[in-house]
């Protein structure tokens, strides 16, 4: 029972300095509580506030033994001095206590860091609570404080006793003397039922075996996983029942439990439940067709749109969740949930969760490219971008069809992802798409595409690139793009590309020379991308031709090439 009155409240004689310290302590507590609601519990900010709260408490207890606080709906008092005033609802720690009936709070000097932390956390839990969640008195009780006591008005202390008593009054029948049967005047001797009396003589004494059995019972009960037991129990009831009505109710109960598990974001348990049901279905132990059907329906519902929506809500509530179990659960779901998984991508608030679903889709999507690809038509660019990423990660040639459909997506971010995705697909058909993208309106895309094409080192890429390089307008291309495209062409074109470079370098227009020179200045360094002897030959020739305006650059390129080769030899010998 909690204390009924706080005997220590008056007469402690706090000094002005102590009062000031208390004002500071509770102000800091209220700010800490408010801040902690906005961060996950392991975040450094709540931890800092908690430490601060304990440090301030400890300082206060250096000169005093007891902190006795009177609580009103918005103010905390010590000896009638207000030490805390809750002005806003979010910071009113007095109100949190008062609402649940706490009228006095006493902390004594031995308070441990653990206790201070629990006290702090109780405030945090209660300040953000929904209707029907824990109240602060329950939380205090569960902590079982040693150095914190509280005087509380319990709801039952102010309940209507009289009214309740009347429920028994209705059955009152005052006895009338005449009704009472006479009994023998002679006292009957005290005769106890023998067996019972004998049993009771040694009742108060427990044998060592009995004590051990009892202790063992209590101990082993502590390892019971009640949640698992409930699920097992419901499944056993389902297996044992042949009444369709009962089976419906059992599965309904199971569903309710499962849905609450989702809300609590307990993914490991969700997986366990799903496994248990599947195992039961596989075991062939269920005879009732209704039970089989209902359980199969249950399994189907594990990944239906409603459940996936709940899962999204759960994932969006907890930013710092361990996502492995969530992925594990989602990977258990059948094909019928595939579209819902895709839908998740558009709804998840946090990047790690989106990444987790994308990874999962890669794993599952390899066999379901068409399903996956259909999502590129979604109106949300961010979803399309994720799907494009997934398509790329599959590396599957069938993805190209969908990438082509989305290659002209109005959002640049999607198109960037398309180029990256094309880089991950090895099918030669991608070259054509990349070449098409060299005509993209955005330079960034075009540049990326050029790099990608260069990496392909393929004949068809060369042919396409050569056409671009030699086209009339190419001289006006932005410098970086121009350089990257020529690099790509040289990288993928082999001997023929060296020839094309020579062709460019040999051009000598009569007027308007500047654009052509820019092109030539970009083309010459591209030769270093080619490993062919023809490239070396061309460079050497240009270097030796001291009258050529290419001579200096060609010499430098040769030197670089030399240096690189030597380094490679060194590295290899090392």
């Amino acid at each position, binding site marked *: 029972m909690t204390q009924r009155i706080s005997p220590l409240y008056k007469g402690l004689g706090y000094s002005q300095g102590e009062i000031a310290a208390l004002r500071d302590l509770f102000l800091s507590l209220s700010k800490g509580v408010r801040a902690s609601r906005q961060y996950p519990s392991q975040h450094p900010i709540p931890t800092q506030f908690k430490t601060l709260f304990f440090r301030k408490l400890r300082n206060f207890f250096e000169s005093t033994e007891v902190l006795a606080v009177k609580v009103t709906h918005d103010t905390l008092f010590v000896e009638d001095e207000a030490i805390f005033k809750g002005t806003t609802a979010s910071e009113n720690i007095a109100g949190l206590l008062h609402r649940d009936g706490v009228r006095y709070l006493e902390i004594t000097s031995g308070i441990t860091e653990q206790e201070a932390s629990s006290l702090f956390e109780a405030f945090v839990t209660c300040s953000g609570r929904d209707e029907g969640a824990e109240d602060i008195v329950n939380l205090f009780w569960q902590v079982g404080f040693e150095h914190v006591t509280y005087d509380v008005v319990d709801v039952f202390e102010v309940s209507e006793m009289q009214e309740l008593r009347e429920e028994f009054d209705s059955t009152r029948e005052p006895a009338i003397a005449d009704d009472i049967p006479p009994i023998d005047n002679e006292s009957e001797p005290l005769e*106890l039922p023998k067996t019972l009396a004998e049993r009771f003589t040694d009742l108060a004494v427990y044998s060592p075996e009995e004590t051990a059995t009892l202790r063992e019972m209590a101990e082993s009960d502590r390892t019971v996983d*009640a949640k698992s*037991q409930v699920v097992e*129990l419901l499944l056993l009831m389902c297996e044992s029942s042949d009444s369709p009505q009962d089976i419906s109710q059992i599965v309904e109960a199971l569903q309710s439990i499962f849905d609450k598990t989702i809300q609590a974001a307990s993914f490991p348990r969700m997986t366990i439940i799903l496994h248990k049901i599947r195992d039961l279905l596989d075991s062939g132990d269920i005879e009732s067709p209704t039970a089989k059907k209902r359980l199969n329906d249950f399994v189907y519902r594990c990944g239906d749109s409603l459940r996936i929506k709940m899962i999204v809500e759960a994932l969006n509530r907890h930013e710092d969740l361990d996502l492995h179990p969530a992925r594990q659960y989602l990977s258990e779901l059948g094909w019928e949930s595939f579209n819902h998984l895709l839908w998740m991508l558009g709804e998840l608030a946090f990047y790690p969760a989106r990444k987790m679903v994308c990874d999962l889709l890669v794993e599952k999507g390899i066999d379901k490219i068409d399903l996956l690809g259909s999502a590129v038509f979604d109106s949300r660019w961010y979803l399309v971008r994720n799907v494009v990423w997934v398509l790329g990660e599959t590396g599957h040639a069938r993805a190209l069809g969908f990438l082509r459909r989305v290659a002209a997506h109005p959002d640049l971010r999607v198109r960037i992802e398309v180029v990256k995705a094309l880089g991950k697909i090895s099918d030669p058909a991608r070259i054509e798409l990349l070449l098409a993208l060299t005509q993209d309106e955005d330079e960034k895309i075009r540049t990326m595409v050029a790099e990608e094409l260069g990496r392909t080192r393929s004949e068809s890429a060369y042919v396409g690139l050569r056409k671009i390089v030699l086209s009339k307008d190419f001289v006006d291309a932005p410098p970086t793009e121009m350089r990257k495209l020529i690099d790509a062409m040289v990288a993928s074109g082999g001997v023929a590309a060296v020839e094309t470079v020579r062709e460019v370098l040999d051009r000598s227009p009569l007027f308007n020379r500047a654009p052509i020179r820019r092109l030539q200045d970009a083309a010459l360094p591209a030769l270093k991308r080619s490993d062919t002897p023809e490239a070396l030959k061309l460079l050497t020739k240009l270097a030796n031709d001291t009258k050529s305006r290419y001579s200096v650059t060609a010499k430098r390129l040769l030197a670089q090439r030399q240096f690189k080769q030597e380094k490679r030899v060194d590295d290899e010998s090392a």
Partner: protein
Amino acid sequence: MTNPLDYQTSRRLSGTEEATYSQRGKAIINQLSILLKTARVHSPDNDSFKAQLEQSYQLYRDCLDEYGETVVQVQSDYLFFCGARVRYDNEGLAAPDHLRDLFQRAGISGFLTTSDLTKAELEQTALLLNEADRQGDLDFEGLQRRFDLANIGAVALLPPMDEKSSDENRDREERQFARRTFFYAMNNLKMVSNTMNADRPVDLARTKRVIHSLVDQIVSDDGSLLELTALKSHDQYTFLHSTNVCIYSICLGARFGLTKSELSTLGFAALFHDIGKTRLPLQVLNKPSDFNESEWELMRKHPALGVFTLAKTMPFEERCCRAMIVASEHHYNLDGSGYPALKRRRSLNLYSKIVTICDVFDAMTSGRVYRKVPASPEQVLRGMIPQAGYKFDPCLLKVFLNTVSLYPPGTLLLLDRHELALVVGKNADDLLRPKVKIVGTTQRLYDRGIRMNLADRNPQTGAYYRSIVRVAEPQEFKINTARYLLDEE
């Protein structure tokens, strides 16, 4: 010193007599109050005072002529007239309040008047009491001296009742607190189950709070709450029964080392063990005759119904899961018999084993479940003991027997002085001599029970004041147990 309760017993008032005393007492008390108030504002020669004195004296005269002497006395805040408690409804409390306060300030518990009372003596009495009330600093001896000086022979002041020792006061407060918690638990269960039956999620904060309080009280001393488990009711059967089973379970668990937090979970599970019953039609639940087969089948569904209800309306937390397990298992026996029928045998949860014992005991002593006549607690225990090992876990049953003891609360005893006594608690060192409330004699029942410890002895002779003759049946004497368990407020 005159003890109104002794007075009452020695006079052996019948019900009708008692009503008459109460009526007369009310009139006298009202008149005395008016007289004293008049004396405060008027001098003795004032006409209104004279008129009130005359009226008071007439009332007294009538009573004294009939009864020989009268006593007006306060005990435990109640006013007694000639040993009968003067009953007031909510109105008309001014006069008794006035007298009670006045007696307290005057340092007396009341006064006795003999039949030779004169009008002058009554006048003097009124004036002296009034003066004492005004001064407020007199003790009993001081006032007595003034009465002696005034030579008022027909009035004997009664000294203040022995203040209850602080232990007794604390006991009383604890009992009151226990009672409030108990009723709150029961009423709260009723509200929660209404919410559940509407398939709405429940707010468990209050339920947890009341269970925490039950655990705290039981851990410090289980007596006050165990006493209340003797309450049985037909109309409120399921809720009262569930509250009782909750208390028994916590008491049992507390005796073999469960932690407070485990006790809270156990109490929670026990409280909801029969929640499935609230889904059954009332005409079946309250059927006065035996069930037929289809009704039995319905009754056997309540454990499963309980699990469904809890699963749908409660959060999926440890304590709620325990409640579901207990709801489903509490009609299973150790040997695997019981219901609902399952394809495979499971080992029973510890909490289910505990609740099963408490459930059977309370159900049998309530006489509401599956049989009409309640058995005495002692009979039920006798029936349960041989079932250890088959139906009940033998070790846990032993702990339970230890908890409720040989004469569990609610047992009616016939004592050697032809008195009837209800057991309210036990003496740990003498299980054969429980604590009781004497509720009457074999000839008549008292208005209120008197607490008595059967282990008390006469300090001079060493003999017990009272001893048990045998266990009796409440219906044999038409005793309403609840009335005596709840008579102190």
